[in-house]
């Protein structure tokens, strides 16, 4: 099995699916002749040509909407947003059209479309270029939301997303594109809504997705030195969400910390926390804690930015709180 970067894994998923299914196209800014802003689509224009790998103007509303229209009428578009911060300009098309037309038409229309691109912060990019959108998209019925944290998952999950007949929001990260992992060449898929226990432990359950999963791993290594064994669950899909896996783990560990790169108010962590208190109340030995970015936009200044972004130390502190080691 070869080591591959996250970006290669995503590209392989798209290329392999496009070879099999003629109705799949990809469009977005700089995806074709420039080979992708983050080189995710490198070589795809050469292989598939301009009919299927399509450069767009900087018109997120326009090309998101054209993609939805094409999906209604027989194509399976993949829409690449240079980052999801810019998808905000086209949000109407995602929220009002992609997510609702099937419902409003009484099921006459299906919209097999994937909106993909980097999500959340990627260093000191300022407030407008650092937003984590998973909670917002997961909030809306009609959308499915995936957010892989590693190359292996990314490939198998993107294949699932492309084959799905509903709109899927597929979140990536600039800072994960270069990350390497063994990724098989053979065909495999990872189902929607199924998480993975990526580290076993008996003292505390840490739920962490996307970039935060890696923070959780760092924290777990440190905690192990103190004799605390954390179980890490990467839910992988944000919607549907593998609550069952989380609840089962808590039945064993009796403690939970949620690490989420969203803002705290009405974010993923709030929802997961609610379900835990409802469905695992009797199993908890401590109130659930969460680590999130603060209720403030991303600052630029290095010191403030570091304060803003969750780090392993915050996760360790939260674990010590739920294990009463503070």
């Amino acid at each position, binding site marked *: 099995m070869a080591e591959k970067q996250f970006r290669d894994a995503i590209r392989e998923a798209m290329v392999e699916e496009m070879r099999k299914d003629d109705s799949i*196209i990809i469009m977005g800014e700089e995806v074709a002749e420039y080979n992708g802003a983050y080189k995710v689509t490198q070589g795809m224009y050469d292989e598939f040509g301009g009919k299927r790998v399509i450069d767009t103007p900087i018109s997120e509303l326009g090309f998101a*909407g*054209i993609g939805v229209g094409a999906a209604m009428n027989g*194509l399976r578009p993949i829409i690449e947003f240079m980052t999801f911060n810019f998808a905000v300009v086209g949000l109407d098309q995602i929220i009002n*059209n992609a997510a609702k037309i099937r419902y409003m038409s009484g099921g*006459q229309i299906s919209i097999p479309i994937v909106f993909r691109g980097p999500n959340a912060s990627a260093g000191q990019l300022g407030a407008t270029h650092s937003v984590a959108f998973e909670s917002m998209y997961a909030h809306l019925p009609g959308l499915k939301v995936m957010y892989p944290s590693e190359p292996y998952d990314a490939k198998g999950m993107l294949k699932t997303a492309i084959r799905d007949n*509903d709109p899927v929001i597929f979140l990536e990260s600039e800072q994960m594109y270069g990350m390497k992992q063994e990724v098989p060449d053979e065909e495999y898929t990872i189902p929607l809504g199924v998480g993975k226990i990526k580290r076993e432990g008996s003292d505390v359950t840490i739920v962490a997705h996307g970039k935060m999963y890696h923070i959780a791993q760092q924290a777990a290594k440190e905690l192990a030195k103190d004799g605390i064994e954390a179980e890490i669950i990467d839910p992988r899909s944000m919607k549907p969400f593998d609550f069952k896996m989380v609840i089962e783990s808590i039945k064993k560990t009796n403690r939970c910390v949620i690490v989420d790169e969203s803002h705290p108010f009405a974010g993923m962590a709030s929802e997961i926390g609610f379900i835990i208190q409802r469905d695992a109340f009797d199993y908890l030995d401590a109130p659930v804690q969460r680590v999130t970015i603060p209720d403030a936009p991303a600052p630029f200044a290095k010191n403030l930015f570091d304060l803003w972004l969750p780090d392993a130390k915050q996760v360790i502190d939260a674990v010590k709180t739920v294990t009463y080691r503070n």
Partner: protein
Amino acid sequence: MAKKADEAFTPTGMVYKSTSLPKPTRKKHKTLGLKDEQLPEIFRNMYLQRRFEERAAQMYQKGKFGGFLHLYIGQEAVSAATVTVLNDDDDIISAYRVHGMALARGTSPGACMAELFGKATGCSKGKGGSMHFFDVERHFWGGHAIVGAHIPLGAGLAMANKYQKNGRVAICFFGDGAVDQGSLNETFNMAQLWKLPVIFVVENNGYSMGTAVERHSAGQLHKRGEAYDMKNGVANGMDFLSMVETLNDVVKEVRETNEPYFLEVKTYRYRGHSMSDPGNYRTKEELEEFRSFDPIERMKDYIIKEKVATKEQLDEIVEEVEQEVLDAIDFAENSDFPEESELFEHVYTQEDFPFHK
């Protein structure tokens, strides 16, 4: 503080004649490729749209259903000409003033009325309502209520048609208010750049809600096409034959060249924007003037004058339509509301989606 007109940003004042019509065509129906026997059926089509909505308004006022109700009355020549000129498998998409277009395309009056009533037998299973009629089998793609948001969808339908080389064109209708949206400009740019076989039609009925077109849009609407090198033109939407004449050329051109076209149709709505609008922003004179060339009366006069059918024959059609609409109301009233389980149906294609509870 006194209001000074010259300090206002948006042009103010009542506009007399919010829209002016190009001269109607003098060509006869045969020259335009229409057979005698088509005309009474076209009259039936237009009159069905009219009568359906008049009755729908009554039902609304009686409290038979809720929500919004935007009537198309006055604009029926546009929809009738569209379905006459297009092939049955060409794709139509429109905004929320949509009952006329669906009926014109052949969606049954019963399914349409039931949709207004929110019944399971409605053309969108009661889940769309007045603004979201859909009949995909008839290549009628809705029914969209965010102003301007379906303009890219129209281009997307055309993109898929071109990709699949199926020879179909798409036609996308929107109101004059939608011309002010960014979606139009983004879509026009891509549609021209990518040469998509789509006809964009602005039904300029003079008003975006209560704002006359001169008060909301700078310049002539069809000229927006020029900025993108998009072919464009104007048509008289109050006259069926004029609409057919224009659409004949436009549809042929778009089908042959695979390039988009922007058509400004000058038309007029006789009723308020929605049921709650008394229409205080326009003059009685304007309304009367446009009523004087009602597209349906005009069609009737033409048919009789050209001796294609007699007045009696047309009266018979009127009677039949009247009955058809009453039957539609019966059908709607006697239909069931959707099952409660329908709440979670058609959110996803996936059968076993684990809804969050």
